[in-house]
């Protein structure tokens, strides 16, 4: 493990705090509308993806991606990955002058407190993400080391981006759990002032926010919750709100035609794929196991006209992907998506001995989390039918789908399954791949919902978990991605939904920022002067 001084990252961070003179605080107010509502506002206890929408504005991490998806030092001014007697150590120098919403400055002890809370299973839903950290050694207020028990490949570029959030130990210890949930605290650009569940969040710009370079251009921000698509668009049209999230795909054409309305689209952070079960012969009453044969898997991949589905069913609101999404560590533009070639698919099916096809259950996920997932599933399974993979379509709502997905649950999944797991924007596919590409190894935490099994893939997936240094990690992930795609391992990668934001061009100045896999970070939103 060679010492790696993050020269590049360090230099960039200097640029960030160049503009030191305090710009005058923002004024005015904006009202925006979101479709889904964050429920848990304590970042250490967050669980559902939707919680990150609000938390992205209140809390911050040591490293964070900027709009160009380049990872920047954020709360960390400088950091170094070194090795001390065989164990990895990340040495971090905190940025000075980072103020909390409720007063007080960010110090190393706050970060240690954050780690302790995030590792406690009674508080956090993700204790296993901190499992490989042994302890945090504090050197001074703005300098500490993270000592690891064993290498954790996903700790740095992982979904958590150094999986620690800047929270104030003083605030957390002096407030009850309910109070923290009502009035969360953090170092982010926005402060939560008021909240009416199911109605709205009221945010206020954090006046002495440390990052004067990229901060909100408006004082008060009200986020209204409007789940009904039609009403949300109508609210923008009538001027009741100035910006809306998640323009429904079917209405994007109309919204674009509205005068004075600007739109932009970003990946929604959920990667969709169709997992093909490779253990059917082990299930009662079945003796053949078609998806064990790579030719059948490739036939399935070639059988579907994904471009057609994206255009008609998803109204163009999606982009295909092969290994991971652009901006993610292992993104490899050289890997071409499978074309729509039903003839070749039929030929492969005949070669594999399934000339007259076979019958299989096809579980179609029904969820509001991404638009038109049900219709996409129906279309996808209809295409499979044309090459002989005859689907018995079974609609399944999110809760039962989760249970069928999880390999530790009986009855085992016995069919093709629409699958959705966010590699997240800028995220590292390490965690999702170890969950659905490694053979199911009960008790070891590998492949907890994997329907694929290949010893060679297992070895590569285990290795990436121990490689922390990005320079070694990225080429390894790319090798895994190439093998995954050729071998159609862990299912057919289909599409990443795009989410479209729309706002009043004359009034709102907006630039989307990514955070924790979603583009709802309102770092740069303001009133146009």
């Amino acid at each position, binding site marked *: 493990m060679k010492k790696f001084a993050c020269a590049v990252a360090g230099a960039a961070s200097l640029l960030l705090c160049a503009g030191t003179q305090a710009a005058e605080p923002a004024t005015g107010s904006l009202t925006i509308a979101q479709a889904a509502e964050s*429920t*848990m506002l304590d970042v250490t*206890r967050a*669980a*559902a993806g939707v919680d990150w929408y609000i938390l992205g504005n209140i809390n911050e991490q040591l490293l964070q991606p900027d709009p160009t998806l380049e990872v920047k030092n954020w709360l960390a001014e400088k950091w170094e990955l070194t090795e001390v007697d065989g164990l990895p150590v990340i040495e971090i120098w905190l940025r000075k002058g980072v103020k909390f919403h409720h007063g007080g400055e960010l110090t190393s002890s706050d970060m240690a407190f954050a780690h302790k809370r995030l590792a406690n*299973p*009674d508080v956090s*839903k*993700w*204790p*296993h993400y901190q499992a490989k950290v042994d302890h945090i050694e504090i050197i001074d207020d703005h300098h500490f080391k993270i000592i690891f028990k064993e290498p954790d490949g996903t700790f740095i570029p992982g979904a958590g981006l150094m999986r620690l959030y800047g929270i104030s130990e003083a605030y957390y210890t002096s407030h009850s*759990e*309910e109070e923290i*949930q009502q009035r969360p605290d953090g170092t982010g650009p926005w402060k939560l002032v008021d909240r*009416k*569940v*199911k*109605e709205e969040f009221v945010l206020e710009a954090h006046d002495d926010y440390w990052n004067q370079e990229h901060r909100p251009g408006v004082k008060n921000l009200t986020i*209204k*919750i*409007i*789940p*009904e698509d*039609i*009403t*949300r668009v*109508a*609210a923008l*049209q*009538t001027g*009741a709100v100035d910006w809306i999230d998640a323009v429904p795909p079917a209405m994007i054409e109309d919204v674009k035609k509205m005068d004075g309305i600007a739109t932009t689209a970003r990946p929604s952070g959920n990667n969709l794929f169709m997992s093909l079960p490779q253990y059917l012969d082990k299930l009662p009453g079945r003796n053949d196991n078609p998806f064990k044969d790579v030719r059948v898997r490739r036939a399935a991949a070639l059988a579907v006209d994904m471009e057609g589905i994206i255009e008609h069913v998803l109204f163009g609101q999606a982009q295909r992907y092969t290994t991971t999404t652009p901006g993610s560590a292992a993104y490899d533009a050289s890997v071409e998506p499978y074309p729509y070639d039903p003839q070749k698919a039929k030929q492969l099916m005949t070669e594999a001995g399934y000339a007259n096809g076979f019958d299989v259950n096809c579980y179609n996920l029904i969820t*509001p989390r991404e638009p038109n997932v049900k219709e996409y599933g129906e279309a996808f399974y209809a295409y499979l039918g044309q090459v002989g993979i005859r689907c018995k379509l079974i609609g399944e*709502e*999110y*809760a039962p789908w*989760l*249970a069928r*997905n*999880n390999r*530790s*649950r009986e009855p085992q999944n016995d069919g093709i399954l629409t699958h959705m*797991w966010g590699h997240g924007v800028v995220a590292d596919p390490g*965690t*999702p791949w170890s*969950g659905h590409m490694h053979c199911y190894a*009960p008790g070891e*935490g590998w492949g*907890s*919902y994997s329907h694929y099994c290949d010893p060679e893939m297992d070895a590569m997936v285990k290795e990436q978990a121990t490689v922390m240094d990005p320079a070694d990690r990225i080429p390894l992930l790319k090798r895994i991605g190439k093998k995954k795609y050729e071998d159609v391992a862990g299912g057919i990668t289909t599409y990443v939904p795009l989410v479209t934001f729309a706002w009043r061009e004359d009034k709102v100045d907006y630039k989307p920022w990514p955070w924790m896999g979603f583009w709802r970070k309102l770092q740069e939103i303001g009133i146009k002067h």
Partner: protein
Amino acid sequence: MLNYLIKRILQGVISIIGASAIIFAISRLDDPTLLLLPIDATPEMVENLRQRLGLDLPIVQQYLIFLGNALQGDFGNSYRWEQPALQLILDRLPATLELAFAGLVFALALAIPFGVLSAVYRDSWFDNFAKLFAMLGQAMPNFWVGLLLILFVSVNLGWLPAFGREGFDSLIMPAIALGWYPVAAMTRMLRSTMLDVLDSDHVRMARAIGVPNRVVVWKYALRNAAVPLVTMLGIYFANMLSGAFVVEVIFAWPGMGRMVVEAMFARDFPLLQVGVLFSAILFVVVNLLVDLSYGVLDPRIRHD
């Protein structure tokens, strides 16, 4: 009057406790923990959560704990919001009551004139029109009415806001969608009682001493005919509550109904239980109030 009251309250309490038992039992048939953990949760984490939520205890014990806490006002925390479920519901209750009440007012605003006029001008064109209009309401699902209202009134015409709860005009469309359903039954009932009352001796007596027709119809006859209608208000209010669940989802009305629907999809059982239990309590209380209101409307009952 007093022992009747006590008997009714006792019946009400039994109904509510019975309802809570049924709801509790049904909601314990499925295990919600998977939904609350991230997708790659290990079986140990699942077990830990089950313990923390007390789901691993035998069901009867769970119910007794639930009942014990409930009596002290603690209905458990919502899984998703990790806040007291009771508080979440109580904050939403006024919005649902307001909507249900508005729906009822809209229904009465239609049913009373329709019922009375179709009795006064029976077999006229108005009588048939009123019957058809009312029957239409009974034939159209309230969510469909809501959707069409949003599509035509607020999106195309832009008259009324299509969402949320800001003042009176955001109440109009939801009230129409909710209230149109029972108009048919109310109109039919009021028409038949009005027909009887308009034939009665005391109405003829009033006319004979020179009371003008509109006073005879709208004061003396209507109050008599209204008594049976009031007795049904309890059931119509329950109708409104049921309907509110759906209408709130469409109009993004921040009421208890929408929260319970979302709690269902998220398998957030404590919240679901409190929501459903509260609608049961609401129903029993309203029925009780309606029983008491007989006295106000019909003195014969007040005195015996």
